[in-house]
């Protein structure tokens, strides 16, 4: 049974999409149950793969149509799931289930709901397919379905002009990216006359010819367009902003993680270019630039989801930098941050969706004081905001801390400095969102805003708890999930050998020994028990002070009726509505760097042609770089 698990995990989603297309508008409940079953089954199948792959450490291979390789020549399409793809598969299928659960209530007010679910299932199936496939052209097809479904879902609310505009821009830029990937696939096929990743990896083992380098450059740029690395990131904020929140959660959770997986698989496992300093420098430089520009643009935003979109770009910059370091600690940090990013960014997008569901707008200048009306969403938002800005008890801190340690040990001191400053600016932009959307005064039109229904809050709570658990018990996460994945990245010989039969790999790899075992002690990171003891003791101390009657007998005086005593202090004025928030926070920082912010505003001018030009320029620069430096 375990042999068929990878294909089952993918097919259940495709069949689900097919059945939902058949049901159409006839029966809502039936359709919702089909969607839930499809996503849940795919998650269960991925979980069942955990024991054989990470538990016992072997790799599941599955040849479509049972076309085994003939005389060491792969003919058929092969699926190959090793620790790395299973690591990505696990948290991707989890976020698919949570997003499906969230969208039942969230999409209720929209029209054309069945089309939403068909596209939703197609996108998630293609991402799962992309993660588990071991065939180059199959990766291109899956990336194409994913882009296609994402474009259609971006323009899902076609009554809004912005959504249609964002959809068109996304398909224009996305198709350039996909064409570059297809071109690279064609060139690799022309060189090796096979499409199987393992066989290509075998033949590519330290004999790079000019054509393979050309293919490498095109592939990296193609996936960079999909991952929205900086010069190609212009489309991302439009697409995330206009798509429904449960979909923008998937955009930032699984679509750009799939592209990161693509970069990892192509660069490190197929091309084994991990120990080439030139490739490392390219990735680290690209990641740092993405990190910095993403967060500085986020500071200047007025819309909640557009701000989150720019943060996705900057956090992906962290992941790329972590992976680019290519040391054991660096890759562990990068992978752990990819997992954490899916968790806390998904959480924040769901909060944005809850705000949109309750108030109808995500414009920060109009919102205010929602914490009183939506206490649970506000608390979940605080957890998400603290984990993304790396505050210790949450999971964002652990992965960022590993990346700082790795980047400084690898000798890239400026990268560590920029990473720390970017993390502080992330904190600044989320304080801005907290002040303008959740705290401060409640505008009149949102007086009777209600908390979102339970079925939307359950996925949010699950993710919030995962964020906290990831922060308090990091060593368990790394031991069972991330170290095997990082090992799989650094030791691709096993990947080739299992797929193509035992003696095939030995022809190319002289040392079949497995990768350096990643053993780092989370130096200095305090043991969680000490932290829990401390919390207990201090709460005890605090209640002691309260019990002593040190407080005023009436404790906290609080009342809701119109009494001047409980009004906010306006130096005596009557409490009229003057909510400080939105874009007039941080005027000091923006004034200080006004030239930089004006330049950035001018560059993001919204014209599709300029975005396409930036993609083509990136391709040219990367090509030049790869030809001159990578040997």
């Amino acid at each position: 049974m375990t042999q068929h698990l990878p294909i089952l995990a993918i097919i259940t989603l495709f069949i689900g999409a097919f059945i939902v297309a058949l049901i159409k508008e006839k029966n809502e409940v039936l359709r919702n149950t089909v969607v839930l079953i499809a996503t849940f089954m795919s998650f269960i199948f991925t979980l069942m793969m955990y024991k054989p792959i990470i538990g016992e450490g072997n790799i599941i291979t599955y040849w479509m149509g049972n076309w085994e390789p003939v005389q060491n020549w792969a003919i058929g399409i092969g699926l190959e799931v090793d620790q790395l793809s299973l690591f990505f598969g696990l948290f991707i299928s989890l976020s698919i289930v949570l997003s499906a659960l969230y969208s039942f209530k969230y999409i209720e007010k929209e029209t054309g709901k069945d089309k939403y679910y068909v596209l939703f299932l197609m996108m998630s199936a293609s991402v799962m397919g992309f993660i588990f496939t071991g065939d180059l052209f199959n990766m291109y097809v899956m990336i194409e379905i994913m882009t296609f479904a994402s474009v259609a879902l971006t323009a899902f609310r076609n009554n809004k002009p912005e959504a249609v505009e964002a959809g068109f821009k996304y398909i224009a830029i996305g198709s350039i990216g996909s064409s570059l990937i297809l071109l690279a696939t064609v060139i690799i096929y022309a060189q090796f006359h096979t499409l199987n990743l393992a066989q290509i990896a075998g033949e590519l083992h330290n004999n790079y010819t000019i054509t393979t380098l050309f293919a490498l450059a095109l592939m990296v740029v193609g996936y960079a367009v999909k991952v929205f690395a900086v010069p190609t990131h212009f489309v991302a904020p439009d697409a995330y902003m206009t798509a429904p929140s449960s979909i923008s959660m998937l955009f930032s959770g699984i679509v750009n993680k799939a592209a990161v997986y693509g970069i990892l698989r192509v660069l490190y496992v197929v091309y084994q270019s991990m120990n080439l300093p030139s490739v490392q420098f390219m990735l680290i430089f690209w990641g740092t630039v993405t990190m910095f520009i993403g967060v500085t643009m986020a500071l200047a935003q007025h819309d909640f989801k557009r701000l989150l979109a720019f943060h996705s770009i900057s956090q992906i910059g962290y992941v790329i930098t972590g992976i680019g370091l290519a040391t054991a600690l660096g890759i562990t940090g990068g992978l752990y941050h990819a997992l954490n990013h899916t968790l806390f960014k998904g959480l924040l997008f769901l909060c944005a969706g809850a705000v949109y569901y309750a108030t109808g707008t995500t414009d920060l200048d109009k919102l205010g004081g929602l914490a009183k009306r939506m206490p649970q969403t506000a608390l979940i938002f605080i957890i998400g905001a603290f984990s993304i800005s790396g505050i210790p008890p949450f999971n964002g801190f652990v992965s960022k801390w590993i990346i700082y340690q790795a980047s400084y040990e690898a000798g890239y001191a400026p990268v560590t400095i920029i990473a720390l400053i970017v993390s502080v600016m992330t904190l600044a932009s989320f304080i801005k969102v907290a002040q303008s959307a959740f705290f401060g005064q409640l505008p009149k039109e949102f007086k009777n805003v209600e908390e979102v229904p339970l079925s939307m809050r359950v996925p949010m709570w699950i993710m919030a708890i995962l964020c906290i658990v990831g922060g308090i018990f990091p060593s368990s996460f790394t031991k069972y999930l991330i170290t095997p994945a990082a090992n799989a990245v650094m030791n691709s010989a096993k990947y080739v050998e299992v797929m193509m039969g035992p003696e095939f790999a030995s022809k190319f790899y002289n040392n079949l020994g497995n990768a350096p075992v990643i053993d780092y002690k989370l130096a200095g990171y305090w043991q969680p028990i000490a932290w829990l003891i401390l919390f207990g003791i201090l709460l005890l101390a605090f209640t002691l002070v309260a019990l002593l009657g040190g407080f005023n007998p009436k404790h906290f005086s609080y009342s809701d009726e119109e009494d001047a005593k409980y009004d906010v202090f306006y130096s005596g004025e009557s409490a009229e509505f003057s909510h400080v928030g939105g874009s007039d926070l941080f005027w000091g920082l923006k004034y200080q760097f006004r030239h930089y912010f004006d330049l950035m505003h001018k560059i993001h001018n919204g014209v599709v042609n300029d975005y396409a030009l930036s993609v083509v320029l990136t391709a040219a620069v990367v090509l030049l770089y790869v030809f001159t430096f990578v040997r």
Partner: protein
Amino acid sequence: MFEKLIQKGLEKSAWLYHLNTGSCNGCDIELVSVITPRYDAERFGFKIAGSPRHADIIVVSGPITSQSRDRLIRTLAQVPEPKVVVSLGSCPRSCNVFNGSYCVEGPLDKYAPIDVSIAGCPPKPEAIMAGLVRAVEILKEKRRAMK
């Protein structure tokens, strides 16, 4: 035991909040001179607090003009218990020379019970210090009454 500590705290660190309801600034300058090195009210723990929520003693100066009347009432309501109202100079007490003017809304005790009133136009800093020390006594009694 804790109550004794709080009493000592109230006595040794009372924070002032200065409320100017249209005064001619004679009393305000005198109040500020109280915290200069020569008279140094900080020796007794007096400090001018920035917001009424932090204050214990509210020092009101000036005849209550019509503009500042409801602002006065609202700010006085926003000060947490136990609080003491001190009228600085003779204006809050009797509207002094401005009595009967079209825009003066009459003495302070129409709006809030005055605990200590420091006479003088403007009162000398020594008088203000004596008034403040008396105000601290009343503050402690109010706290005991509140228990």
